[in-house]
């Protein structure tokens, strides 16, 4: 078989595949939004896609590849968001001999502090880049720590018990942040120093490629991970826990690995999110935004396929944005009755989950089940053997 024929076949596969059709739809919708709304809408969609595809890919690692009912995705996201809101700014304040203790997070001080830090960051691109990297490292470390802590009690539980416990932990972390003022200001949001301040008005134009670069690095890492022996362990655990343990797999260890890696990545997503918004409001870190939406993205795209996850995030983010933009044009009848059409976002979320479960159980771009050795290669090996004999 020539390599040329092989590539042509692959190309044909891609053209006929669902992933390609979905990309086309996304492209058309984006073009439509661009011509009716302009660049700023496209930029905000792209940033959200980058952040949420990171979070959803981490969810996919735990729920899709390892089979853990991760209903507490928000816990790790919170860890990253709080860490970025609390720690890097304090480090900067320490070196600038500004107050960095408990008073850093108090609303009156924080408002004056962060602009000073921003001014310093805006002066040097090296410092800005270093600050961004520091944020990512701190977020990842905090996420891994929280993931490990959650995995301690969680590994003993099964299915629904596990899901509910993780959901409760996520909610509890949100309330801790909301009440404990010295982390991220409690009920008053804390500002996050902005490593993209140096670009001024073009801030968003730079954030998009930067976040996409991070998302792509994570995408490549995860794709290599799930093909590695560790990733095979994850899938083995998902497909049959009993046979996995019979094959000598340490289930507790594998589950912990999945939870820690997933939490680390989700926390990076949370950290990037607060860098983009510029502030951390604990009460905004709800399970609706950071657990249920990622679940919907993942279920629509495909459980167990990162390409599918990416397309799912893209499609749903566009639909969400369209509801917000066209609420008065499309849903004027609701507004006439005094009802805010923004609630349709919840309806969309619920409806997507229901429709996917009822009619698209494997998502739009299902995970390809690949045998260890493809059939045509098995045939080739057999024919070679026959030729030899």
């Amino acid at each position, binding site marked *: 078989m020539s390599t040329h024929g092989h590539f042509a076949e692959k190309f044909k596969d891609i053209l006929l595949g669902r992933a390609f059709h979905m990309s086309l739809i996304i492209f058309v919708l984006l073009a439509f939004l661009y011509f009716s709304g302009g660049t700023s809408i496209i930029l905000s969609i792209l940033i959200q896609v980058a952040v949420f595809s990171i979070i959803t890919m981490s969810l996919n690692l735990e729920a899709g590849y390892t089979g853990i009912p991760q209903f507490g995705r928000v816990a790790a996201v919170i860890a990253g968001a709080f860490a970025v809101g609390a720690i890097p700014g304090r480090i900067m304040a320490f070196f600038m001999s500004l107050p960095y203790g408990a008073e850093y997070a108090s609303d009156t001080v924080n408002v004056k502090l962060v602009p000073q830090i921003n001014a310093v960051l805006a002066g040097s691109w090296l410092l800005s880049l270093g600050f961004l990297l520091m944020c990512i490292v701190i977020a990842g470390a905090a996420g891994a720590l929280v993931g490990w802590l959650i995995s301690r009690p969680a590994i003993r539980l099964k299915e629904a*018990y596990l*899901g509910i416990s993780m959901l409760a932990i996520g*909610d509890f972390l949100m309330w801790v942040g909301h009440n*404990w003022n010295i982390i991220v200001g409690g009920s008053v949001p804390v500002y996050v120093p902005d490593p993209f301040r140096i670009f001024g008005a073009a801030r968003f134009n730079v954030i998009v490629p930067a976040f996409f670069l991070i998302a792509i690095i994570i995408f490549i890492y995860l794709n290599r991970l799930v093909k590695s022996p560790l990733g095979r362990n994850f899938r083995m655990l998902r497909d049959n826990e009993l046979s996995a343990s019979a094959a000598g797999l340490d289930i507790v260890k594998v589950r912990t690995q999945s939870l820690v890696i997933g939490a680390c990545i989700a926390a990076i997503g949370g950290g990037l999110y607060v860098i983009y918004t510029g502030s951390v409001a604990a009460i905004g870190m709800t399970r*609706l935004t950071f657990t249920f939406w990622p679940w919907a993205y993942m279920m629509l795209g495909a459980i167990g396929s990162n390409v599918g996850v990416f397309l799912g995030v893209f499609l749903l983010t566009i639909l969400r944005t369209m509801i917000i933009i066209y609420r008065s044009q499309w849903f004027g009848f*609701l507004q006439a009755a005094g009802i*805010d059409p923004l609630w349709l976002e*919840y309806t969309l979320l*619920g409806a997507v989950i229901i429709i996917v*479960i009822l009619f698209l159980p494997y998502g739009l771009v299902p995970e390809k089940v690949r045998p260890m050795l493809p059939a045509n290669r098995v045939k080739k090996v057999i024919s070679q053997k026959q030729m030899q004999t």
Partner: protein
Amino acid sequence: MPPWMSSGLIYASGLALTAGSITLLYIATRTFNFAVASMATIGFYTVYTGVALYGGLPYQYFPLALLVGAITGVICYYGLNRPLLRRQAAEITLMMSTLGYDLVLLSLIQMYADFLTNTYKLFPRRVTMSLYDFELFGDRAAAFILPVIAIGILMILHIFLTKTKFGVAMRATIENPVLAGASGINSDRVYLVSWIISGGMAALGGAFMAMAMTGTPVMGMYTIPLMFAGAILGGLGSIYGGILGGFVIGLTEYAGVFLLSQKFGAWVLGYRMGIPLFIMAATLLIFPRGLSGIPLFKILKSLAGGSLGGEKRGVSA
């Protein structure tokens, strides 16, 4: 009664009903019902609408709340749960499907709150239902009435499940669906009735809880971890366990917050949710399958003489 105790009793009665609702549905259909959150909120808004628009006491609208809750349950069963049960979907899929239903209901509740605000000039986003209550023995009447209603419902359920033919058939289906089907029980109807009962219980539970806390459209969404905590504490094995678990969770929340704030100061109030969750986590760590993992519960069950999942009995209905 000290105020924490009366509020605690009201709240705990509501939580007991919602936890019982979750447990009943889990035993009957293996479905972890997320939609209990919105069903509870719907129950509260039914009662609130009645009181605010037509006057009277909240109690007279409780049957209506039961009815509305039952209807939401029926819709969920026919639209969502039945096709999935026929497909023998996984537990997680069943759970996710009720989450989708819950979010749709939540959006409808939010729209309804907007509608009440704009059409009737009410303030449905922060409601203090206890204002509509009357006084009994120098205390809020709800503190006496609601626990009694909760216990009454528990007794009616018990009689229904042990003394009526359909109740026995229901238990048989729950114990062994295949065998029950072979002996001629219509499992479809059993599932439907469980959805009706659990929907009604959830809505009534929400109406109860609103008598102790501030009623908001996201009331159910914020308290659903506690409802689950109650159900899990009860072990998900018997309705009685679930109801008891919910009651314990609700009462310890109020008692714990009261005692801790006396000792450490008012800042504890912000972490009130942590107390029941801590109890749940501690229970799960010691008994990974909830309180019904304790032999004591089995002893109690056999003493009570035939609860759900209790002794087996030949059934022909």
